[in-house]
């Protein structure tokens, strides 16, 4: 555990890190970024909290069973959206033109809109959940091991 200054600052900063990571995940089909990158941003926020508070404090709120449920849920969302387009082909973008994320942008440069992209925003969300939970679990397991503790079930 680091000094009180570091703890206070990281306590305030984690909110902005989480919001920025979610922004990168949810705007992956409009702006640069996506599920992998936004998940890495949020996982680095978890690393910041581990550095500031110590792994023994963080393991009380990040349990292994919750992390594995989140990761498997993300994987299921991803593969489910892939299988849902099975009527045409595997990984078919079947939501284009429908009311759900179905707006089609004009070809060429345009300002962009969040409500476009078909299945891609949903897949980005699933991959983001997967990367958040996976990287957090890896980092937390390593930090707990190096400090001689064990992960909470």
């Amino acid at each position, binding site marked *: 555990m680091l000094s009180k200054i570091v703890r206070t600052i990281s306590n305030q900063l984690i909110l902005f890190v989480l919001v920025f990571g979610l922004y990168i995940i949810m705007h*992956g*089909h*409009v*702006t*640069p970024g*996506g599920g*992998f990158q936004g998940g890495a941003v949020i996982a680095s926020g978890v690393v910041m909290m581990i550095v500031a508070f110590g792994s023994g404090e963080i393991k009380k709120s990040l349990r*292994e069973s919750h992390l594995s449920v989140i*990761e498997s849920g993300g*994987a299921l969302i*991803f*593969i489910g959206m*892939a299988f849902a387009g099975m009527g045409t082909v*595997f*990984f078919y*973008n079947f939501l*284009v*033109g429908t009311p759900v*994320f*179905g*707006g*089609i*942008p*004009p*070809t*060429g440069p*345009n300002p*962009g809109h969040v409500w*476009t*992209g*078909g*299945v*891609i925003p949903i*897949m*980005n969300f699933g*991959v983001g959940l*997967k*990367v958040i939970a*996976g990287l957090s*679990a*890896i980092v937390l*397991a*390593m930090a*707990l*091991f190096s400090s001689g503790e*064990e*992960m909470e079930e």
Partner: protein
Amino acid sequence: MRQIVAWFVLITLVAFLVAGALLMHPFGYPPSDMDDYMIANSQAETANNNVVAAVLFDYRGLDTLGEATVLFTAVTGVLLLFRALKKREKKT
């Protein structure tokens, strides 16, 4: 005998690497038409402004599935490995 085989493998690998470096197409001029097709049609076909995301999750979705599997395997391996180390430490 082993040395001859090792030299043979080494020379073959080096020849392949050098040939790959020499035969590479010039920078900025990819040999296929696939990229032009994706840049021209990704907005109409996948309703995506971000062509990278369109390639990643739509045209080459199977590759992203493999990437997700790699991440899953990495997490499983790390958790298994560190738990096994923990148990061995407790026993001794």
